[in-house]
Every structure is written in C-alpha cells, then in structure tokens.
C-alpha cells in the first residue's frame, strides 16, 4: 500500500510534467526509471573541487582553444577615427526595407559629388528603428549600409574608400515610440576621416 501511494505521487507528477510540457514523448514507463525508495542513504555526490575561480567550479579539463580564426579583417580603419561631416547627409528608409528611395537617391547624389571632390575615407552606419528584433535588425542595418555604399560606388566613388558598419536598432537618434521617431531612426549615417 505504501509503495503504491508513492508510485502514485511519482506518476502523478510525471503526468503533470507531460501535460505542462505539451510533449507526449516521455512514455509513462519513465516512472519505472525514477529512483526507487530504498530507505537507505544513496550515493553521496562527489564534492566539487575547490578552485579560486568564480563559481561554478570547472569540473573538466579546460576546453580546447579554437584555432585562431581565419577572420583577420582585410582592412577596417578604427571606428573612432571617423568624425561627423556636415557635407554628407543622412538618408532614410521605409520600414523593413533597404532599397534607396528616389528622394534619398538625390541626397546620395549630393554626397557622391562631394566625396569625388574631397579625398576622404567614409564610414557608413546602417540603423533601424526599435521594431523587429535585435538580431534581424543588425542584419537589416547591414543591408541599408551596403545598399547605400553600392549606390555611391555606382556614382563613381571608389569602393576602397568606404567602410560600412551596422548598429541595428542599438543607436537610435530618437527614443519615442512613434512613427515620426521610428522614421528618423531608419537611416544611413555618414562619418569621414582624412586619408
């Protein structure tokens, strides 16, 4: 009788688990694999090794260090060397889009003209509004910066002078939750530095 009741407790909880997880893959047989009552103390857990490192202690040898990634950037000028340039105007984008709008193309034509007359390096930042999610917006900001770069290259600006960076939704210029504000944040922004 006692044993039946305890099995009942275990199976009852198992059912709760199955039901709440919405997953029927755990067969009822799992009840049999639950530790049986023994009335005696079971094995003591091995003590974790003492270590000066913060918790939790490492229980296994150090993980192998990955080989140095073949990720050496071809050439990425330090971001902090770029500064604002009033001659290069921001352009803006429709929600979840990265194509250049006709009005913004005219702005880019002006930027291209200035760049062709001034031999500086340029950093194009791609930005998004807060809608959508962070990871996707990082990719979307990349596409906006890239589309902007491609347009300038099409207008005769050397690709080697242009670096792009996406900030996704992480650096808004406006923090209200309104369409007017979101529209300002969906932008490509320009910085420059002397060669």
């Amino acid at each position, binding site marked *: *009788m*006692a044993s*039946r*009741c*305890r*099995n*009942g*407790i*275990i*199976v*009852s*909880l*198992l*059912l*709760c688990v199955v*039901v709440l*997880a919405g*997953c029927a893959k755990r067969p009822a047989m799992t009840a049999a694999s*639950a*530790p049986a009552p*023994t009335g*005696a*103390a079971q094995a003591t*857990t091995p*003590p*974790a090794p*003492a270590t000066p*490192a*913060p*918790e*939790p202690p*490492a229980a*296994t040898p150090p*993980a*192998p260090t*990955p*080989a140095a*990634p*073949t*990720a050496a*950037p071809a050439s*990425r000028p*330090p*971001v*902090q060397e770029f500064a604002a340039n009033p001659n290069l105007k921001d352009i803006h984008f429709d929600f*979840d*889009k990265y194509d250049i709008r006709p009005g913004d193309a005219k702005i880019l034509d002006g930027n291209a003209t200035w760049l062709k007359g001034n031999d500086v390096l340029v950093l194009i930042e791609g930005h998004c509004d807060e809608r*959508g*999610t*962070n*990871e*996707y917006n*990082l*990719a979307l900001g*990349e*596409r906006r910066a*890239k589309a902007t770069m491609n347009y300038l290259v099409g207008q005769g600006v050397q690709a080697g002078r242009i670096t792009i*960076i*996406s900030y996704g939704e*992480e650096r808004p210029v406006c923090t209200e939750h309104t369409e007017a504000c979101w529209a300002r944040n969906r932008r490509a922004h320009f910085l420059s530095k002397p060669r």
Partner: protein
Amino acid sequence: MRRLLGAVIAGLCALALVLPSTAPPPSRAQGVDVYINITGGGTKKLNIAIPNFAVTVGSDTTGVAPLLASVAGADLTFTGLFSVVAATGSIPADHPEALRKSWTDFAAAGAHAGVHGLLALRGPRLEAEMRLYDLTTPDFRLIASKRFEMAADQPRRLAHKVADEIVRQFTGEPGIADTKLAYVAGSRGVKEIQVADYDGAAARPLTRNGSLNLMPMWSPDTRSLAFTSYKAGYPDLYRAFPFERRPDQTLAAFVGINSSPAFSPDGRSIALTLSKDGNPEIYVLTLATGAFRRLTRHPGIDTEPSWSPTGRDIAFVSDRAGGTPHLFVMDTEGGNVRQLTFGGFHTQPRWSPKGDTIVYTTRQATHDLWAINPDGSNARRLTSGPADNQGATWAPNGRHLAFQSSRLGAWQLFSMLSDGSEQTPITRGSGEYTSPSWSPRLP
C-alpha cells in the same frame, strides 16, 4: 490545503488505473474524472514541507540554514509541480521522535512529502544532506537521501542542487534550478552582458567594456558564452569563459556583421551570421580548426540560426520570401530548405531541447511569442500584448522559457511555462534587461 490534498489523493487513485499491478481504487468514476481534469491542464501540485535545515556542525552565523530552505522552496514552487507548505524552525538530527512528530503535523497540514535537511558548516565548505520522506505513508517512508558539498560562499547553489534532486526523485529528470541566465543589461549605446542564477539572483558582470555587447549564447558544456561585441569598434564575435580566469577569444572579426551565434548540440561548432561575402549569410565555424563553412547562398537576409537538438537541422530567419522575415529550416549542409511561417513578420526561432517545438517572435501591433512544430504545423500564440514579448530562450528541461517583456515599462526578463502559462518576472531592477540565454544544467 484540504482541497489540494483531496485532489492529489484522488489523482493518485486515478493513476492507479494506469498502473497494472495496483488494486482498483474505491471509486473508478471519481478517479476517471480527476484524471481528465489533470490532462486538461489542471495544476494539481504536490505539497512539500521544507523546514529549516538543522545545523549539525559549525555555527550558522550568516543564516545559511534558513536560506537553504527558502531558496529550495522557491525553486520547487517555480517548477509549477509543487506547493511548499509553510514551516518555521528545523527538525533536529538523530531525533526519531521529533521527526515523527513533525511529519505527523505536516501531514495533518496537507503535506504529501517532507524534506529533512541537515547542514554542516566546515570552514570554507558547506555540506548539506537532504532526506526526502513520503508523508502519505503511515510510517513516513524515506524516499531518498543525498549529500551535497559546495564552497561556503555559494549557499544558493547548494539549495538549487537540493531542489533539483527533489525534482529528480519525483519526475525522473533533474530540475533546472542549478542553471544560469546570461542576458544584456543597459540600453541605447552601452549594453553589458551579465550572468545571474536562473531566478535572477546573484547577478555579476560578464563584460565591462563600455560598448555594445549583444546576443549572449551559452555553450552546451556551460563553460563559455559566445556573443557579439563592439568593443573593438565593429560587431565582432567573441567567446567568454565566465567561470575561469581566461581572456575572451575572438571567434570572427570579418568585415561586416559577425553575429547571432548558436552552439551546435555537441559544442564543437557555432552557427553564426557573417556578411563578409556581401550580405548576411549563415555559416558554421568549426571550433577545433577555425574553419568557416557557408550554408546559405541567397541575396536577401539570412540570420538567427538555431540548431535542432539532434544537430541535424538548423532553423533560421530569411527575408527571401516576399521581403519580410520568415522562419525556415535547413539541414547542416544548407540543403532541404523548408519554410515554416507564411504571411506576417517572424524572427528569433529557438528550437526546444526536446526537439518538438520551435518558439519564435511574431510582429503584429506588438511583438509576441509563438510556438510552432518543426514541420510547420500547430502555430500557437504564447503571449498576448499589449506590450512587447520577445527573445525567448529555453530552460534545459524544455518546460520553461525566459523572455523579455516591456509590460512593466522598461524591458525586463520574465519566465513562463512552455504553454505560455505562469508568466512571472525574473528581473525587477530599474535598468533594462534583454536577450536572455538560459544555460544548460551546470556540471
């Protein structure tokens, strides 16, 4: 209490029906009713008593004994499977009469199980013993007993281990209290990654570089986290070792974005997003060799890989179908691409540890969490505005999710069961907390 006790006992009788070796219950009809009630989503819980741990060695000057009871009790409550019966004081060790009297009292108060905890304080070490009793039996049968050791400065972790063992005794699978949450703290311009206990306690910084640190993701062995950081100016991918004195590794620092890391289930590879070849594509980095293998070849956005627990498939997000982001699944060679969602705006796929569900974020008037079967069937809503709910991460048992919600104003982390019930705040601070990653169980 009375009602719960009656319900559980009725449930036990109902369960007798499915146990071939047991005698029939007094009333079959009543048992069947309760059984249906349980499968219908009822929350019949097991009442468990956890008095303070009894100190057997040393002097408990910092209140470890009551902390163990309260933290383990909170852990059991969090599971949704237990109700903790209120208790004060402790049951002395080696005192059968006191033990019997305590269990008699707790059983009368409705407890089905009792935890007799013993604590030895040995300088830099804590030793706890957990003895679990079945209070529904006349002789208060001992179900199990187990000892745990922990550094003296980690009493909460000791309590989590006790709670996880209790859960294992009743369900066959350990609990998830001895796990960590990594997440992003801060907003607009400076975001740092922190690591806390699964319940938000004991938060500590992982990064402290004053730049943007995004998208933390635990490795399967819980020893490391991959994340994207702008600490060198550009969004590069790093790996940090929160429990070791070891510098960050640079995993990917290509031109463009290096983002959205996801460890393969065997921990040997990381799927990630790189735009080095012109636009955001998904690659797999083999950690042992540093080699990158490209999986997607499409002019649109491909990002946010999430491995199936078998390691054979990867869910991801692409805008290749009509310009808005949708969920897709491919194999690890980039083939057999299937579209899971149609219409709308869907991102952040996260494959469940059991493999049967993919949770994701859908943008309508607000962002909300949905779940879908990996074959694209049974799309179901888990959260309902009016605020935003997004960025879900699975607990290792597949029963719980953590996510970020703006329902209290600023972004805070919440938890819920995988059916969307029991939504509860994890963080309550004045800051903003986003992008949680729930660790596997600690070793």
